[in-house]
């Protein structure tokens, strides 16, 4: 009973974000779909012409699925860093919210649900683009590949929340972006297969990498159960660890 009450309140936090988000729907959604589209055209079709086949895949076929993961990474990180920080400090959204039965727990869970939804919906958007390019071949994969996007959005969003808990002003997110998000993005197997054995070991600590692998396997139709379970467990593990950490930071920010 208490759980349901709490969940309903968390969904109100989601509803609040959605109400604000939909006011500017085109501006809010376009980067998440347009960026991957242009990457696909410029890198995939342009640069791809100079690249030999990778594991039997053309470069667009190789690159495409990773872009679903990429959009989940950026949409969630920006939402939970800049977006959350603005709600927290400039808009004072939570100050008033916390005078209602909504507590910090509901705010945190609501934000996480919101990240999951955004990751899933944006993942779906990019999946549709890939379907048009005939990179994703099976429409049935549209049912669950976007959900992997939602799953990626959780740990990546948690990183943004943690950053929100530590930065002293909004500019400092740039440091987090340059030294954490950018390397996670480039060294993830989205643009090229990671063959260097040392790098391959290091990126095991990146939740994003595991998400990329899950989506690639699924999209290429090369699911190996053992690998799938491995990457899935790793992604869930990182999600749990980062969620606990980010929850603590959010509590520290909202409660004195």
């Amino acid at each position: 009973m208490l759980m349901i009450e709490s969940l309903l309140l968390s969904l109100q936090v989601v509803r609040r974000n959605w109400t604000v988000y939909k006011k500017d729907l085109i501006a809010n959604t376009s980067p998440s779909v347009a960026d991957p589209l242009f990457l696909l055209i410029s890198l995939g079709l342009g640069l791809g012409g100079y690249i030999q086949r990778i594991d039997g895949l053309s470069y667009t076929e190789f690159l495409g699925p990773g872009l679903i993961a990429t959009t989940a990474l950026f949409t969630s990180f920006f939402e939970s860093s800049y977006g959350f920080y603005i709600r927290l400090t400039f808009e004072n959204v939570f100050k008033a919210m916390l005078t209602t039965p909504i507590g910090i727990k509901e705010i945190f869970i609501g934000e996480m649900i919101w990240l999951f939804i955004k990751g899933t919906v944006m993942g779906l958007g990019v999946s549709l683009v890939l379907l048009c390019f005939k990179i994703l071949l099976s429409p049935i994969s549209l049912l669950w590949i976007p959900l992997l996007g939602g799953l990626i959005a959780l740990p990546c969003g948690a990183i943004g929340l943690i950053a929100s808990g530590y930065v002293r002003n909004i500019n400092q997110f740039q440091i987090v972006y340059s030294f954490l998000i950018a390397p996670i993005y480039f060294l993830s197997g989205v643009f090229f297969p990671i063959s260097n054995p040392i790098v391959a070991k290091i990126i095991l600590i990146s939740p994003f990498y595991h998400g990329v692998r899950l989506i690639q396997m699924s999209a290429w139709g090369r699911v190996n159960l053992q690998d799938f379970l491995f990457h899935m467990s790793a992604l869930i593990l990182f999600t749990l660890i980062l969620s606990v950490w980010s929850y603590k930071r959010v509590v520290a920010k909202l409660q004195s």
Partner: protein
Amino acid sequence: MIIEASGVNKRFGDFNALKDLNLKVQEGECVGLLGPNGAGKSTFIGTLYGVVRRNAGELKVFGFDPATHSKEIKRKLGVVTQDNALDEGLSVMENMQLYAAFVELPRSKQEARISELLRYMQLDNKKHAPIRFLSGGMKRRLTFVRALLSDPELVILDEPTTGLDPAVRHLLWERVLDLRNKGKTILLTTHYMHEAEILCNRIVILNNGSVVDEGSPQKLIQQHTPGFVAIFEENSNTLEKITSYKKSSWTTYNQSKQHCLRAPTLDDLLEFQKTSGLNALQLRPANLEDVFIKLTGEGLGAND
């Protein structure tokens, strides 16, 4: 008893924001929490619904401990927050619809309740206006609407009229008195002594995190600064006359580059004007502001 605080302490690093604070608020009271900036008013309010965690002391609101049962407390509480904290991009109606759901108002009752309160706060013609097009006074009134959505038993007003024009202020005062008449319990912070005097039946003066004194406005004035005050223009000649003519039981002090003289009766001051040949800029009964300044000091501390 609605609020029962005893020995409440809150530290921020080395700074003691609340020091052994004791305060009781009974049902139906309207209590004014006064104190200089940094005295601990907002910190104390935060402890009441759990966003500020006290370090020590006993605290019960509606019989619940805010550290463990904030949800139960918040269901009976409405807060006019110091910052309006409205969603600027949304309309009046959209803001209130969200909050009606936040306070768990049944869906079927939301629309009617919001409309009723918007009318009550004279905002019913602004239903679809985006918040960013509202004046400061309208935003403040809307913050009242938001606080009252759940028909709370305890209403907390954190500096409700700061920065508002007199017309809006009077409207808000009327509404607060209305709430008082309906038997709501009210806790109000303000820097306007006149406001506290009009609205509150009990004043609690806070300084450096503890209660300095409390009582009805009249009682506090009687006790700390009884009588009448004459205010004179500042110059050395005036000061000389004041010091030589005044009786030893009278009080003198300087404020805003003016000499102030407090005596037990108005006649004393009129008599003083005659004998000294000085003409006061103002003659008035002592008020809560005199008490406030006496109890909390005129100087600005390190934290102001």
